[in-house]
């Protein structure tokens, strides 16, 4: 059951979006987020919607899959919409008891919900189309200049990729420990919240012990394979920017400029 968790939610593929340099994709997503916050009119939202639709269709990831990412946050979106409807002052449309619904409130609610939904969908496109390893490599290279001010960029990236590497192993281990405890009569499914939490303790203790032991052994194995930090390290797969990356940058700049212009004219 735990094995069903797909981490990083990466969907392998061989589309233009998949083949983009991870650095490009990270930058594009950042630009997209900025643009989403600048956009505040029908025209700019329409433009951003076109961008999002284009990215999704190019990546050949099913719309239903992308929308699934929004599902866990539906509650947050609902609350945002609710607050916007009732707490925006403006031309009153309906009034009852202490509540007032204004025209501006309705517009705000729609825009805010749409903004959150589109932000989630857009950022999910990054993890859907980029393998965790490539994402780590991309982040490491993008943050590279920060090494000058002594930010341990390589170490952070190594920690991230180690965590990604160990997650499936630890999930498997948890499964095993749970089975072992169940075989000895442990009950994880009944009782109230506190009882359930208490039942988890016999899983967490051995899991932690084994995680530490694994980490120790892994460190020894890494050392015996000549690991000595990021200094002088080379890469099997070197990231290279190609034509499609530059085209994406140009398009992103154009969209951002478009959104800013639209906002400037109050459209």
């Amino acid at each position, binding site marked *: 059951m735990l094995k069903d968790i797909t981490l990083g939610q990466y969907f392998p593929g061989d589309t233009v979006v998949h083949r983009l340099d991870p650095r490009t994709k990270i930058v594009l997503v950042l630009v997209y987020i900025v643009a989403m916050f600048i956009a505040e009119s029908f025209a700019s939202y329409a433009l951003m919607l076109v961008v999002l639709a284009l990215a999704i269709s190019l990546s050949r990831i099913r719309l239903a899959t992308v929308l699934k990412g929004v599902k866990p946050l539906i509650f947050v979106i609902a609350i945002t919409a609710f607050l916007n409807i009732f707490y925006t002052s403006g031309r009153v449309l309906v009034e009852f008891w202490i509540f007032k619904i204004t025209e501006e409130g309705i517009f705000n609610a729609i825009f805010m919900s749409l903004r959150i939904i589109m932000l989630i969908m857009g950022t999910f496109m990054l993890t859907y189309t980029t393998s965790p390893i490539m994402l780590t490599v991309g982040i490491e290279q993008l943050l590279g200049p920060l090494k000058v001010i002594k930010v341990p960029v390589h170490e952070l990236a190594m920690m991230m990729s180690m965590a990604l590497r160990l997650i499936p192993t630890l999930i498997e281990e948890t499964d095993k420990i749970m089975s072992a405890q169940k075989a000895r009569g442990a009950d994880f499914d009944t009782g109230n919240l506190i009882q359930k939490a208490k039942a988890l303790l016999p899983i967490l203790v051995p899991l932690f012990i084994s995680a530490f032991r694994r980490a120790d*052994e892994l460190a020894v194995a890494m050392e015996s394979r000549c690991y000595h930090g990021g200094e002088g390290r080379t890469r099997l797969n070197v990231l290279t920017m190609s034509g499609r990356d530059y085209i994406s940058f140009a398009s992103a700049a154009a969209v951002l400029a478009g959104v800013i212009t639209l906002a400037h004219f109050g459209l």
Partner: protein
Amino acid sequence: MDIAIKTENLTYFYNVDETGDQDIPDVLDNVSLEIKKGTFVAILGHNGSGKSTLAKHMNALLLPKGGTVTAFGMDTKDESLLLEIRRRVGMVFQNPDNQIVSNVVEEDVAFAPENLGVASPEIRRRVDDALKTVGMYEFRNHAPHLLSGGQKQRVAIAGVLAMDPECIVFDEPTAMLDPSGRRDVMEIIHKLRYERGTTVVLITHHMEEAALADRVIVMSDGHVVMDGKPKEVFVRVEELDELGLTVPETTRLLFELKNAGVDLPLDALSIDECAKVLADKFG
């Protein structure tokens, strides 16, 4: 110089607690050994005999508390030689899950040459070569955690091969594997030894594996108690029994027959040899 690993009066103990209680016995006590280049040496011993501790001295994972260890003429205490020692003396551990560092097989194999600063095209060549040697080339883009134990261990061996080592120390590499995985690993060891001329040090519990070596070293309580060709070591059945070690089943059979009064040589180690000896006697 034809010596790969040399230990002289190697002594090691784990840290004593702060009360200064010195009664903790040495894990290794005055071990002096020479392992020749290109040979296949098996180290046997029950748990706590010091065999893994000895192995960890060979690539400077542990440094001697007394005596010296040299790998290809380099003193392991010399920190400036550390990377070179570890490159030339690779190490494969028991649990394949705890030595794989990446989510993709080929990236894992590339880990060591990446650390050594090898240029990208050369890393590619070495990774492909190492994966072909262990027969895992078709799996190069797979996720390691979805492979079987034996396959994972082969990936781990490829990861060491990518450093282009001259000596590989295997620390109970088959202990967690099923019989087919065990056979695959032993085949690779055989191949490395005879086709590449790699020096192999194999630490193991399995007598059948040790029987394939050129030389068997038996350890007990931090001492080397036996050292010789497999045939010379395994005929000492009673001593091995006392140390809590078993002997290969062929030797056991011949030993029991001898005890029952049938005069047979004990050194027919392989199944074929054993069968021949029995056939000659009774046939």
